[in-house]
């Protein structure tokens, strides 16, 4: 869209129906689109990635294959990373075979221990079924691998605590919980905006995940089929609120800067009744300090309106979806300081404020401008999360090597102190991963029991 062409910004109903995008809809409703600046390389300056690392992926279900796909695109990411997928692993051979096309040259194995024995592999990404995380993660940390563990970290608070404590103890290693939104620059851009009170008094958070899917993987082998469909059994799954909702609930707590104090849940098995005991439709109300509640709603029965998160305040609401965000201001809300410096956009009956990299007025002379780019915001939260994980891993390894080269290997404690101070790119830590499991376990318990559970602060204490 040409922002200088005012005619192009005057939508009519036909154009709206023709376009029909969510962005168009939000614009029509008076949304102010909020963009983060990117750290993209300037066009034409793509060079050999400075960061190189050998990785392996353990667990090659749909999400594991998405991870492999994302890693394969890392050399084209901004900034680029030469992530060499040395090995891929799954206990289910057809998954391994299917992944081979995505990672040509990678060794294929059904035994994760062979990956841990390979000294050339510096980092592993664990995307196995949740209840298998603990064994693999603990072994990987013991083998000296940097670990990215998908969320939720575990299916029980006890297992999550063990993982988190092991990660805490491994100070020379990076451990990242797969709460990928915590690495998303778009969310980091929004964070100070929301925390600074730009929405007024925050009163409500809402998130939903609507899909039409049976959540099932088919197999000709009944025993294998049961293993593949671990999400459908209460014995191995935290259900929708754990497997999907933990990301969105964690994000709400992150923006609100608080842990929930209570959760009330409801669940029903309304449609996919034949093959599972995990509800296909759930609602949870999470209570946060300051009289703020979050309504979480997920279903596998209807896909309308998809997946998004919202925060509501007395002055404005913010909607986050598809890597973008829009602000909807109340008519009586005060003028925000940054509005003065932002480009104004006129669309339909509203005048909005765009925060687009490089489009606002120059910052004060004493501030260092970021190397912002005009490139579209195309990267995914997963690619940011994996990119930050790999870069953090390389940074920690090189810091350890540089420390030893400069100061010798006698002062191990000094090196550990130094490593703990190495700046990390935005990533969910073991503690945040642990907190997310505590909330998910209790929310799932509330949903299965259709009850309210007070979340005791001590449950969130790691040790």
């Amino acid at each position, binding site marked *: 869209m040409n922002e200088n062409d005012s005619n192009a910004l005057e939508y009519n109903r036909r154009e709206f129906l023709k376009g029909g995008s969510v962005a168009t809809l939000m614009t029509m409703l008076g949304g102010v689109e909020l963009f983060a600046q990117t*750290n993209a390389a300037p066009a034409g300056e793509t*060079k050999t990635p400075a960061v190189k690392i050998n990785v392996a992926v353990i667990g090659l279900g749909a999400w594991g294959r998405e991870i492999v796909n994302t890693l394969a695109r890392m050399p084209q990411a901004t*900034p680029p990373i030469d992530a060499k997928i040395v090995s891929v692993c799954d206990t289910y051979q057809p998954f391994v075979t299917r992944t081979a096309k995505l990672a040509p040259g990678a060794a294929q194995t059904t035994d994760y221990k062979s990956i841990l024995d390979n000294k050339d592999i510096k980092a592993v990404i664990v995307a196995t079924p949740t209840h298998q995380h603990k064994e693999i993660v603990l072994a990987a940390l013991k083998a000296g691998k940097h670990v990215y563990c998908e969320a939720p970290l575990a299916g029980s608070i006890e297992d999550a605590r063990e993982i988190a404590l092991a990660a805490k103890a491994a100070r020379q290693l990076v451990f990242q919980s797969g709460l990928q939104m915590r690495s998303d620059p778009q969310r980091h851009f929004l964070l100070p905006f929301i925390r600074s009170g730009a929405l007024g008094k925050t009163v409500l958070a809402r998130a939903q995940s609507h899909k039409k899917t049976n959540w099932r993987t088919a197999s000709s082998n009944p025993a294998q089929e049961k293993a593949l469909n671990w999400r459908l059994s209460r014995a191995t799954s935290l259900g929708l609120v754990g497997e999907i909702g933990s990301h969105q609930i964690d994000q709400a707590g992150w923006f609100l800067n608080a842990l929930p104090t209570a959760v009330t849940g409801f669940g029903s098995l309304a449609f996919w009744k034949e093959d599972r005991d995990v509800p296909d439709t759930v609602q949870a109300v999470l209570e946060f300090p300051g009289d703020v509640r979050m309504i979480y709603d997920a279903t596998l029965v209807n896909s309308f309106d998809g997946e998004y998160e919202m925060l509501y305040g007395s002055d404005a609401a913010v909607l986050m979806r598809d890597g973008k965000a829009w602000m909807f201001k109340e008519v009586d809300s005060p003028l925000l300081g940054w509005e003065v410096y932002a480009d104004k956009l006129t669309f339909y009956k509203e005048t909005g404020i765009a925060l687009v990299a490089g489009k606002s007025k120059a910052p004060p002379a004493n501030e260092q401008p970021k190397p912002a780019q*005009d490139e579209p915001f195309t990267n995914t939260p997963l690619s940011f999360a994996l990119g930050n994980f790999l870069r953090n891993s390389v940074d920690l390894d090189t810091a350890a090597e540089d420390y030893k080269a*400069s100061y010798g290997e006698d002062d191990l404690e000094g090196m550990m102190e130094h490593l703990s101070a190495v700046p990390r790119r935005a990533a969910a830590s073991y503690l945040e991963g642990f907190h997310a499991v505590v909330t998910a376990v209790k929310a799932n318990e509330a949903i299965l029991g259709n009850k309210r559970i007070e979340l005791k602060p001590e449950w969130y204490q790691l040790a």
Partner: protein
Amino acid sequence: MNTKRHTLFAGTITCLLLAAASLQAASQMTTYAARSGSKMRIEGTSNIHDWQVESPFIGGLMEVGPGFPLEPGQAVTPGKVEAKAEVFIQVRSLKSIEKDGKPYSDKMDEIMWEHLKEPVHKRIVYHLTEMTLKEAPKAKDAPYVFDAKGDLAVAGVTNKIAMVVNVLPLADKKLEITGTVALKMTDFKVNPPAPKIALGLIKTGDDVKLIFKWIVGQRKLPAA
């Protein structure tokens, strides 16, 4: 004959004394190795804003003779002292930072490393060749001020540089060696980077300032 014998004897004694003196001097050399707490900072300019990069690593060894101050308040005589050092910085450990010390930009780091020819020349190396104590400190906790001369190798080009360094003896047999030196990138055949960004072309200035704090500790003698 007797005269010749006496001369030979005297010469032998002189040689022995010189050798003994040399051995004694060698035994009085004190070796220091780099310790954590060091920092190298490089400051520069550009047409948009000033910039700075830092590394927490300065490695290397230093060997000093008897006239070198090892303890706070130690009486020393101004003049040339026996000292040599080999100091290095891993180029990849230099990272761009904001004024408040937060990381600035991965892209800028990569541009800097590329201009410093990091893939080939992994280290910036300084070789100390001469050190002269300017004057004794006026206070016990004041540093000893030296003129230092040496060779600095950056991106494969070596230049002789002179600078003032301050040596402050610390507890635990450590020394804090600080100093500042102004250089030109082009003296080391480093072209000032001019990366393209969305805001336009950044042109960095040729002049840079190196500010360092090198912490060294007495090296433990190997067990007998």
